[in-house]
């Protein structure tokens, strides 16, 4: 569904991604793991159009069409069903919970089905229904994460880019969020998951890529990566 070919991306003068190639197939959960500064967020931001690659291709295969994403604006990419849920939640603190969810649906061309989707998000995260009129900034960290995921769902993603959904959350909340991610995938959403928490990510994912200094150091089925000595040592905190 998504294909990155020899991607080079700069942030200002810094060469962050140095030739990345990877694929995400329809229906998969793919985990992208690596240390801080390896280029995980940069990869997602390039896919969602916030950053432009210097060279290389980002291709979306959708309904038999091949679309070059690198030439598109972020708002156009959202309309293609590629939705990026950014790191650190980043809900709109001064807007109400409900407005945040409606912003999620902002890019949708047909306005029908929005109410149904809102109900679905409320079913998934009942707390968001309870707090619908509250300012998003007054929610707890975990509730904000639910709001961020719910907001992304309102865009009806076909490919969801999730950046560090476990960051700063209590373990129980992490369980909840990961359960939702699994359910979403079962319901047909393809997911590219960036995580510091490599163990959880690889347990959930079908396949994984390990990013080191802007290049892919290792890739393979999730179970294989979980069993890999190098990965165990560097990312799973298990002495090898």
């Amino acid at each position: 569904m998504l294909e990155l070919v020899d991607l080079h991306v700069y942030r200002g003068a810094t060469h962050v991604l140095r030739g990345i190639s990877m694929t995400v197939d329809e229906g998969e959960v793919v985990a992208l793991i690596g240390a801080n500064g390896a280029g995980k967020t940069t990869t997602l931001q390039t896919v969602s159009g916030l950053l432009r690659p210097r060279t290389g291709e980002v291709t979306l295969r959708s309904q038999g069409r091949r679309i070059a994403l690198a030439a598109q604006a972020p708002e156009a990419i959202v309309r293609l069903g590629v939705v990026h849920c950014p790191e650190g939640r980043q809900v709109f603190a001064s807007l109400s919970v409900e407005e945040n969810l409606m912003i999620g649906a902002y890019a949708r061309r047909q306005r029908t089905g929005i109410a149904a989707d809102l109900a679905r998000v409320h079913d998934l995260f009942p707390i968001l229904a309870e707090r619908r009129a509250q300012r998003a900034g007054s929610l707890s960290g975990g509730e904000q994460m639910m709001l961020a995921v719910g907001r992304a769902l309102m865009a009806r993603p076909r490919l969801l880019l999730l950046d560090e959904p476990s960051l700063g959350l209590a373990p129980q909340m992490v369980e909840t969020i990961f359960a939702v991610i699994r359910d979403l995938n079962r319901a047909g959403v393809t997911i590219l998951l960036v995580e510091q928490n490599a163990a959880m990510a690889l347990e959930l994912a079908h396949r994984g890529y390990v990013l080191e200094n802007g290049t892919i150091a290792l890739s393979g089925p999730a179970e294989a990566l979980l069993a890999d000595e190098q990965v165990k040592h560097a990312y799973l905190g298990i002495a090898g």
Partner: protein
Amino acid sequence: MTQYYVQQLVNGLTLGSLYALVAIGFSMIYGIVRLINFAHGDIAMVGAFSTLGLVAVGAPWPVTILVVLAVGALAGVTIEAVAFRPMRNAPQVTGFIATLAVSVVIQNVGIMVFSGQPRNFLFPDVMRTRVPLGPATVSLTDLVIVGVTVVLMSLLVVIVHRTRLGMAMRATAENLQVARLMGIDINRTIMAAFGLGSALAAVAGLMWGGRFGQIDPLFGFVPGLKAFVASVIGGVGSIGGAVLGGYLLGMAEVLFVGLLPPEYAGYRDALVFTTLILILLVLPNGLLGRGVEDRA
């Protein structure tokens, strides 16, 4: 004596309304693009001169107001397209210089077209009618200015808080990057902020002319700067703050002139800008504003 105090109060409200209308635009634009539009005050001048033209061709006043709103919006959108958009990724300082340049262009084109001589600007005679208000009377002009301001502000509140566009504007002001990720076309949102803010400034210019009787191509600049001071008092970036700051500044100016011996009246503008420096010293975020520090 009652008449005197009521008149002072009305003077303060009238002046405050005009400052508030201009300050709102500063705040809306700053809220989204983090830039002060130095040409914003000159939009008021453009509004006032458009009014002269419309009156000359005999347009009825309601039509005039609508056209002036449109002219202001158009001017704002043009400034955005010419001077802001090409420099959106440039350092902040570049943006200030560009808007200052736009201000110089507008003022001097004004001088080239209309000459620098002040022109009389008259509301219809009926506006000079005195209307009884409690124990005193006030002029219809002042009532209309305050009334129009309240109506326009209410409209703005509806747009900002009850429409999709307004929601997108608030989201963009809070976090431009994430707004883009939600599929918001920020170019359109920024354009809307310039358009709405400038439309209000243009009407403020119309009413400024009618209240003070004379306009010239440079008249918008200093009131524009004072309106910026008002938005700083309220907290730049906050529309509510701009309104509050506008009325506080209008009242303060009127009190200053009204309470002190007449020989100090000339120091009014010095007071306004000294206030700015003092506010920046003790309350840099203003009364209702969030942080003004640069986002890293």
